[in-house]
């Protein structure tokens, strides 16, 4: 069994002070089960402390470390070196930030700019139905009703789908923003339906989608994003 790999990372870098873009190559001896976040940390510790990149939970729950590796948007905490070698059939990896928001430095993008699209669909209950009776009662939602949209609530806003979605770059709010909207249309606790439908069906809404299903293909949470968008197109 191979225990270490000599890998080459070609990392797209950006220096905001000099407004300079360049690609830098790093040779790394990487253990077979190092994750890409570990490899980046190793570069910081041993070769180049200036390389900037982002992560937080590092186990696939927060969606901070998304980036493009050999063109595929993914969570770098979930990609092990040996799996990457296997999957891409190479030991050279080109690493770029997702292009869903402006870059700040190297692999770090201005995530809150990307989130503005999600904010626009109002990711909360606009007008909550009052709870059933007195103040000890919750709303009742049958498991079957919940099942219809629960998968859409699993989204962690990593923006991998937005990055893969060919139509999301300009006018489309993007697949994950659509998911957030669909959830509240289907949630029986939301009484405000008109504003919801306006967002889904306006000029930045679901009709911008070309049904390529790239979103479902790249989603690290394995959410069938395109299915929910198709539901919305059918009028839910």
């Amino acid at each position: 069994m191979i225990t270490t790999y000599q890998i080459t990372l070609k990392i797209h870098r950006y220096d905001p002070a000099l407004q300079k873009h360049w690609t830098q190559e790093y040779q790394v001896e990487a253990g077979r089960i190092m994750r890409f976040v570990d490899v980046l940390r190793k570069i910081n510790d041993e070769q180049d402390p200036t390389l900037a990149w982002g992560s937080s939970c590092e186990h696939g729950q927060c969606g901070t470390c998304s980036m493009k590796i050999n063109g595929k948007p993914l969570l770098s905490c979930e990609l092990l070196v040996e799996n990457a070698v296997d999957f891409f059939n190479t030991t050279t990896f080109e690493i770029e930030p997702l292009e869903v928001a402006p870059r700040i430095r190297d692999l770090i993008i201005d995530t809150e700019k990307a989130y503005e699209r999600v904010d626009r669909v109002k990711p909360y209950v606009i007008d909550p139905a009052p709870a059933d009776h007195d103040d000890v009662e919750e709303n009742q939602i049958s498991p079957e009703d919940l099942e219809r949209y629960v998968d859409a609530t699993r989204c962690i806003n990593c923006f991998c789908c937005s990055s893969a979605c060919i139509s999301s770059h300009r006018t489309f709010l993007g697949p994950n923003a659509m998911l957030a909207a669909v959830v509240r249309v289907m949630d029986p606790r939301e009484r405000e339906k008109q504003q919801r439908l306006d967002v889904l069906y306006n000029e930045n809404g679901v009709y911008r989608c070309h049904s390529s299903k790239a979103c479902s293909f790249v989603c690290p949470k394995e959410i069938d994003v395109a299915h929910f968008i198709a539901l919305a197109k059918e009028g839910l």
Partner: protein
Amino acid sequence: MSNALSIRSTIHCDVLLIGAGGAALRCGAEILEQMPTARVIALTKVSHPQKSHTSTAQGGLAAVDPKDPMDATIFHMFDTWKGSDCTADQNVVKKICESAWEQILWLENRGMHFSRDQQGRLSKRTFGGHTRNFGEASVYRAVFEADRTGKGIMDTAWGETLKRGITFINQAIAVELLMENGRCGGCVVFQQKDGEFVRILARATVFASGGSGQVFQVTTNCRQNTGDGLALVLESGLPVMDPEAVQFHPTGIVGPGILASETLRSVGGILRNQAQEPFMEKYAPKMKELAPRDLVARAIETEIREGRGIMNPDHNIEHVWIDLRHLPQEVHEKQIPEVTSFFKRYVNLDPRTQLCPVRPSNHYHMGGIPTTMYGEVQDKNQGVIEGLYAVGECAAASFHGFNRLGTNSILELITMGKLVADRVVEVLAQTPAAASEMTSSHYREKMSGYLEHGGSESLGQIRFELRALMTEQVSVFRTKAGMTSAITRLHELNRRVTQTKISCRDLKMNQELVQRWELDNLLAVALAIAEAALAREESRGAHFRDDFPERKDEYNYHTLVSMDRFGEIELGRREVDMSVFEAGGEHHEQFSIIERKY
């Protein structure tokens, strides 16, 4: 360079939340519900509030449903008291347990996607240590959102604050607390995105900065949990409480530290050492793998200390094996599918055919910034610091004492978040409308020091040594000799750290500068933990001394540690509140000093 370090602007607000995890957002949402015109600012180190650590909490949220005939609030209070090894404060326990269900409804009514039972009501599960009738049998008390309860809380509370017009400043780090005459007036913030320092003046400042897990080498905590809150409080001359109370989970996946659930052992997983011997029978001949968490954790660490661990070459961490190969296919598929997928995803191992590496993983910090039951921060003499509050994992009110029950932490976030908000709103209504002027005193010197230092030491190497040291000497296995040597080493690391240099000169998104600052925080928190653990010559809850294995009544108090400068340790005490016991009502005898035996 020194010009770049000066304060660029001043922002005024009513409430400044340092943090945007579950505790901060619940608190912020309540303040805005009650005072819609208030200007509330929340800071995060991460790129967006949703990326905060609370989003990773899985299991659930304990709360007694008043409709449940089998359960009662007093049972939840008892379990928490017993679990804390009689070191939780009973006034806080009572307040939190009594308001729990109301807060569940707050979340439910605002759209959290709780898992449901057949009637469409909130499903409940059992959890270790939660019982009915004072320990008689386990009880269904934890509501949950599948295996992503923390994410459910975050999504809901973030949505509410967004709806009500909070201002988030992401990737913005509080680097100095502004204090004058025992009063807090806000803080200095490093806005990484612009590479600028700003001053935020607030009428109320609330610490909600989360845990400190990065102090240890193997941890379930996220990368940003470097104990900043505790370090900022210490450098302001304020104490931290019970820093030695740190919880470890026996089986973290090596190297990422990710939780491999207890279920692995209950379904028949066997722990093995380097020679592949099943070693648990040496430590717990009857219970073996099913012995309590802390005992299993210590057994694993002992094997490793005595040279029977295995070194993982990729992560440079020693570990033992958990063997699941003999379990029937059905168990793998039906009972432990998530954990199986974790091993697959993060270490590329198939537990059906391969041994899997585990080591106890740091999980939770019970200790923190001492507060009253309303989250007001206290000084060494338990006087309240005007304008300063703390809530969530960084705070110690104390709900968990020396050991936290599963599902009680995220409950604390939402209940204390609400209580702190109530108090802040009440105080704001009584005080003058303007925040007071305060000037910074030391962040600048510190930062320019970091940028000017030169030398050949590596930041990464020192951080690695610090974390390994804490895992080896100050984690589940503590002795006088081990901790004394750890303290000496920490002083040495603290000297070496001045020999590191920062290559990136531009301040914009300068991660080196931030990591350098974080390393100082890790060092300070590590030292506070080690000194407090050394002084407590007994075992209590998660604090286990190999040389003093019993709990002792003479230590029935909270430790207070102050450290105005690195190494200048001052120890103090706070009494444990036993008001439920003292009130003498029905069942009060259950709240006396009892044994923690299950």
